[in-house]
């Protein structure tokens, strides 16, 4: 019977024959329902979009390198801005992170697959199709022949700029549909992860014995289920406005512009946590292994993550301090936002506590993780400044905010994505990534990142608004912007090192073995790459670090937990 276990095992055995024609092998990837393959496809697809959206960012920085530059037209800049922002969130951040969770969660809970493998495949293809729609808008935005008309309304697409009166053609419709599809795909993934985590853990893995990564995967999935539907609803309402003459956000017919902002940020703020919690999750696995210590304060770490998720649902209007809320509203959202810093602080302290007294091995994943710690500290502190509502009246919609959220998105999330790639690449491919190229990658990217984004804090403090295609000379902004743009060259060089590293390693990397980092969670107990069915025999665990117990039978974890 097609799709039965035996059939799929047989297929995977066949695929090992290198003689399969390339089309046949492609066909296998297309029809796969294996969580590992789908995870890798999310990650690979996300990385491709990362390169494209990164090039778009570099083009913006080229235009901004000097004042009053006329290298690209304003509308072209606004399109780059919109597509870059949208792509980085929906086509890069979400898929890469959920891709990792897809890959790792079943392995870490000792299961053979996710609960709904076909739903998983469906989610992926929905995501891919939605993603392609965003870029297709470049061709289709003004009808099939109106080339070059991608959306130019910004990634938060404030109404009524997105209404027909101000956004003609179809580019905004492509934007709406793209987000609608990718978020339906993500909701499917979230439901799948939740079900798997709560129903499919191996024998002995109680909730208190799950790796922290799995806990965070559950929290993230819960958040996605709560916040993606409002986003989809808002997109549907906007479509109704644009095609059927509804007036939800159409201010010219009496609709509300502020309603859109509430809808968008009820999704948009927790979305930051949807992105950053998986990054935390990677740090929770990598920092202990390379410090050779158990994670410090497991329960508090988990509790802090749950608290973060809950608080994040009540802070959305801190994106709206300048819309003219009453003082009580401003004060409430300032206060709730500042509360976020307490669980965040706990997490940072616990990571330091994990390194404290350890024997830290500075392999590439650990280097990226330490970069993450420092940069996330900065991002958190600038976040507190933004939560101080009156201070935010000056800072919001300036380059200070651009710097702040790139510290979150690149400094924390992208750094942890790279850490995770260096860490789990050997598991997924059976090959190690090169250390020397890895170091070049790390240092170039780190230097470039701070050159670009640290400087931009100061541009904001000097009154440079964001989302402008140019600025005037003589405003004290010239040097800052030039340095920021040169930083992009370093970042790009770093990424190039990474690409070379991946290609070289796939061709002729050092074989990894099952457990190259001397790690402790279940994924390292199976072969690299794992067989299609993950475990020949389902594991049984007694503690959070089953491989530690195996390696240290004289002093196992379960004695202390």
């Amino acid at each position, binding site marked *: 019977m097609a799709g039965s276990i035996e059939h799929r095992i047989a297929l995977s055995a066949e695929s090992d024959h290198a003689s399969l024609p390339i089309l046949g092998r492609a066909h296998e990837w297309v029809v796969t329902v294996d969580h590992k393959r789908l995870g890798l496809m999310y990650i690979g697809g996300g990385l491709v979009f990362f390169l494209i959206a990164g090039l778009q960012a570099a083009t913006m920085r080229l235009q901004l*390198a*000097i*004042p*009053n*530059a*006329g*290298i690209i*037209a*304003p*509308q072209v800049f*606004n399109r780059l801005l919109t597509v870059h922002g949208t792509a980085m969130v929906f086509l890069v951040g979400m898929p890469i992170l959920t891709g990792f969770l897809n890959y790792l969660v079943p392995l870490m809970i000792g299961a053979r697959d996710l609960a709904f493998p076909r739903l998983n495949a469906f989610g992926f293809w929905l995501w891919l199709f939605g993603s392609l729609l965003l870029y297709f808008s470049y061709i289709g935005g003004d009808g099939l022949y109106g080339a070059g008309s991608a959306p130019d309304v*910004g990634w938060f697409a404030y109404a*009524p700029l997105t209404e027909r009166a*101000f956004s003609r053609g179809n580019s905004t419709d492509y934007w709406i549909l793209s987000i609608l599809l990718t978020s339906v795909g993500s909701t499917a993934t979230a439901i799948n992860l939740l079900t798997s985590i709560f129903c499919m853990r191996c024998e002995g893995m109680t909730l208190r014995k799950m790796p922290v990564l799995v806990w965070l995967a559950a929290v993230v999935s819960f958040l996605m289920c709560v916040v993606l539907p409002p986003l989809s609803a808002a997109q549907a309402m906007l479509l109704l406005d644009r095609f059927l003459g509804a007036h939800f956000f159409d201010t010219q017919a009496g609709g*509300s512009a*502020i309603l859109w902002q509430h809808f968008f940020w009820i999704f948009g703020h927790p979305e930051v946590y949807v992105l950053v919690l998986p990054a935390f999750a990677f740090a929770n696995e990598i920092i202990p292994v390379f*410090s*050779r*210590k158990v994670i*410090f*304060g497991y329960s508090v770490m988990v509790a802090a993550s749950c608290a973060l998720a809950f608080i994040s649902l009540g802070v959305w209007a801190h994106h709206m301090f*300048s819309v003219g809320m*009453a003082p009580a509203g*401003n*004060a409430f959202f*300032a*206060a709730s936002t*500042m*509360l976020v*810093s*307490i669980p965040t*602080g*706990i997490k*940072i302290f616990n990571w330091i*506590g994990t390194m404290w*007294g*350890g*024997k*830290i*091995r500075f392999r590439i994943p650990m280097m990226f993780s330490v970069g993450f710690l420092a940069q996330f*500290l900065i991002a958190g*502190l600038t976040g*507190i400044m933004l939560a101080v509502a*009156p201070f935010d*009246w*000056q800072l*919001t*919609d300036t380059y200070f905010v651009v710097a702040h959220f790139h510290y979150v998105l690149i400094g924390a999330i992208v750094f942890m994505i790279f850490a995770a790639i260096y860490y789990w690449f050997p598991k997924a491919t059976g090959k190690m990534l090169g250390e020397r190229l890895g170091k070049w990658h790390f240092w170039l990217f780190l230097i470039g990142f701070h050159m670009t984004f640290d400087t931009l804090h100061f541009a904001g403090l*000097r*009154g440079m*608004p*964001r*989302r402008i295609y140019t600025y*005037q000379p*003589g*405003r*004290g*902004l010239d040097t800052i912007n030039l340095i920021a743009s*040169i930083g992009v060259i370093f970042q790009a060089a770093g990424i190039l090192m990474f690409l070379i590293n991946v290609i070289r390693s796939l061709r002729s990397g050092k074989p990894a073995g099952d457990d190259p980092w001397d790690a402790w969670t279940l994924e390292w107990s199976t072969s690299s790459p794992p067989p299609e069915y993950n475990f020949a025999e389902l594991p049984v665990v007694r503690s959070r670090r089953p491989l530690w117990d195996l390696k240290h039978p004289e*002093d196992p974890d379960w004695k202390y937990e």
Partner: protein
Amino acid sequence: MMMKRWLLGIAAMLAAASRAFANDWGMGDANSKIPPSSIFSPVSTPASDINTLAFFTLAITGTIFLIVGSLIVYSVVRFRARSDDDGREPPQVYGSNPIEFAWTTVPAIIVFVLILITARTIYTVQAAPRPPGAINVRVIGHQWWWEFQYPDLGIVTANELHVPQSDPANPTPTFIVLESADVAHSFWVPRLAGKTDAIPNHRNTMWIDPHEVGTFLGQCAEFCGTEHAMMLLRVIVEPRGDFQRWAEAEKQAPVQDASVARGRAVFESTACVNCHAIRGTAANGTFGPDLTHLMSRETLGAGVAINTPEHLKIWVHDPAEMKPGALMPAMNLEPKDLDGLVAYLATLR
């Protein structure tokens, strides 16, 4: 050394490119006389209140940064594996309740203090006193320019807001009502106050009381479409007497100069009148800026160019050359008509 030469090379290339690409209609020189719009050099009470709170916040976050940053650096340096490591695992520490408790409560106390101080500033800045001398201004955001109305004085102008200096002994703050004619905009002059959005179907208010005379640059801070970047504004703060004089001049009907009658006829017989107003003529459009006292303004096109007859000519011929995407169409006038029209506009003082 190599690195430095590299950077210099790149900088030189970019500078050369900038000259090739830049089209700066005299604004660079005009702006460089005005100090940067740093939020840390406030000249008005709301901005000063924010500045005080900002320094307090920076002190707290700066201290936390130093402490936690040093902890990270220390643990990374102190606890790295040595080359003579014996390969044994370090002691496993699973956690510590007293330590966890400490680093939960201390941040909680800091946060509590910060919340109180923040709330206080929110209430003081948002609740403005309204002394008898206050000036009322209606600010209307348009895709990509600003309209300023003084309802009590009967003045309408654009892109340059004149307000009187306010001295603490005898305050004359300016009360601002913000509206939008199309999409969301945001009014922001960093040295005077934080930003407040101008949203369609919605009315926001704010106030400033500048105590320093001078020109302060601001700009739209909410993304509003193609030329969002070129939705600039300047606030001109004058001693009270000068402000009064300016207001009187703005109230006057525009000059009727016979020598430019031809240009005036051109203006009144083309589509200009559909969008612009000039008091005392048939033109009463509201889609574009009021031109009654056009030449009393320093800049053109919401700050893209210095306001000179030469620039006016380029602008009227084809605004897109200066401000691509601007909603004013190219007027396609005969050269002679264009000359006459610009001569007429140049008399609108």
